[in-house]
């Protein structure tokens, strides 16, 4: 048996393969749904790494090919930006 709880899917939020599989089995079969409930992929990487794995898991458990699943959405600003940088105040005081 694979030790699913030793397999980390999202490093940003410490979500394991076991967490993901349980959610899918509970009926959460949309990647956006899973991301929101677990915060998996809600860190600065926006799910670039875990997204693929989640899609594959959904496909494996539901039997729907990945091509037919809804893909994840990305949102700006990529990689994050500080408020001071938005405002053009690059004197990072303190």
């Amino acid at each position, binding site marked *: 048996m694979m030790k699913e709880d030793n397999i980390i899917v999202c490093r940003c939020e410490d979500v394991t393969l076991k967490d993901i599989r349980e959610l899918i089995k509970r*009926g959460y079969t949309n990647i*956006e*749904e899973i991301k929101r409930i677990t*915060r998996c992929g*809600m*860190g600065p990487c926006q799910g670039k790494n875990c997204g693929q794995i989640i899609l594959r898991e959904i496909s494996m458990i539901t039997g729907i090919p990945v091509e037919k699943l809804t893909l994840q959405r990305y*949102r700006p600003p990529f990689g*994050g930006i500080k408020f001071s940088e938005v*405002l053009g105040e690059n004197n990072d005081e303190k």
Partner: protein
Amino acid sequence: MMKNKASIVIIGGGVIGCSAAYNLSKRGLKDIVLVEKKFLASGATGRCGAGIRQQWGTRQNCFLAKKSMEIFENFRDYVDTKIDIELKQKGYLLLAYSDKEVDQFEKNIFIQHEYGIPSRILEPEESLEIVPFLNIEKLKAAAFCPTDGHANPFHVTAAYAEAAKKNGVTILKDTEVLGINKSKGRITGVETSKGLIETEKVLNAAGSWAREIGKMAGLDLPVFSERHEILVTEPVNSILDPMVMSFSYNIYCQQSPHGSFIMGYGPENEGHNHRINSSCNFLENMSKKATWLLPPLKKLRIVRQWAGSYNISPDKQPIVCESEELAGFYMAIGFSGHGFMLSPAIGIYLTDLILKEEPPFDITVDLGRFERRETISEPSVV
């Protein structure tokens, strides 16, 4: 399996639809089908600030908010769920920048106290005890209610939905309502992307698409949708207890238990449409506003921005009733920026409405109020 017969079809898997489904099923209604075109909380619910405020200016809102907060406080028992809704009750700090606003807050607090809402007025300096790094320049006074707060909207919706499922409700995700069939002035069924569901009752809880659902039934519902943008930062140690909010400076900002800051403001000159793209303008304005009011935020990293739709009625207050033109067509729409916080009480109210029992509370939320010119004048809305 597609369910093809229902006692009621609930359109919309947002917090309102799911709260209604749960409450109806808890009271014993069978064969409930909830239809959601994408996934649960994919609309306004999953995009919202998720604040829960009891500091309102009308009796009815004070009542609904207080009632809802009591349910949020006991959510595990009330909804019989293991899901943690991440309720944080560290208050709402409302900022007043004019004498008129201070006046209004005082009037509101008078009403709030009637309902046992523990709010109070603070001098600018006193508000520093609650948020030490608040910029109190130009601040006249603040109102504070320590039991206000916020919760995780996905978890609340999921908890309602899972409990409803346990009670036998069928939830169809990825299923879009395409039409509503009528015959001889009565509803006969709902046409969906996955087939027809026969029913005599429909609950329109389609959030920003409420008007379109109305049209499918031949009704002209007086609501429109408007984009509201929002952003979130990286998580950091807890430094901000309450939700900080101002109607006149136009901002709300909170720190979630997870550590990220979530903030937004009400837009100006937005069209009435379903746009939910993000704008650069919002990013810049929000940055200016937030860092002026809460200067230490400057060093924080914004990680995502997005937008959702407010569904807005002429008096910016919800419409929760059965249509007078079409029997069996119920609606819970037009929640503007406060549908999440009112969802527990609205779910209960809807249940009695649909089961044709005495309304559990005396509130005016029907569609007829606009014709009767009895609109609700709530002074404290974003």
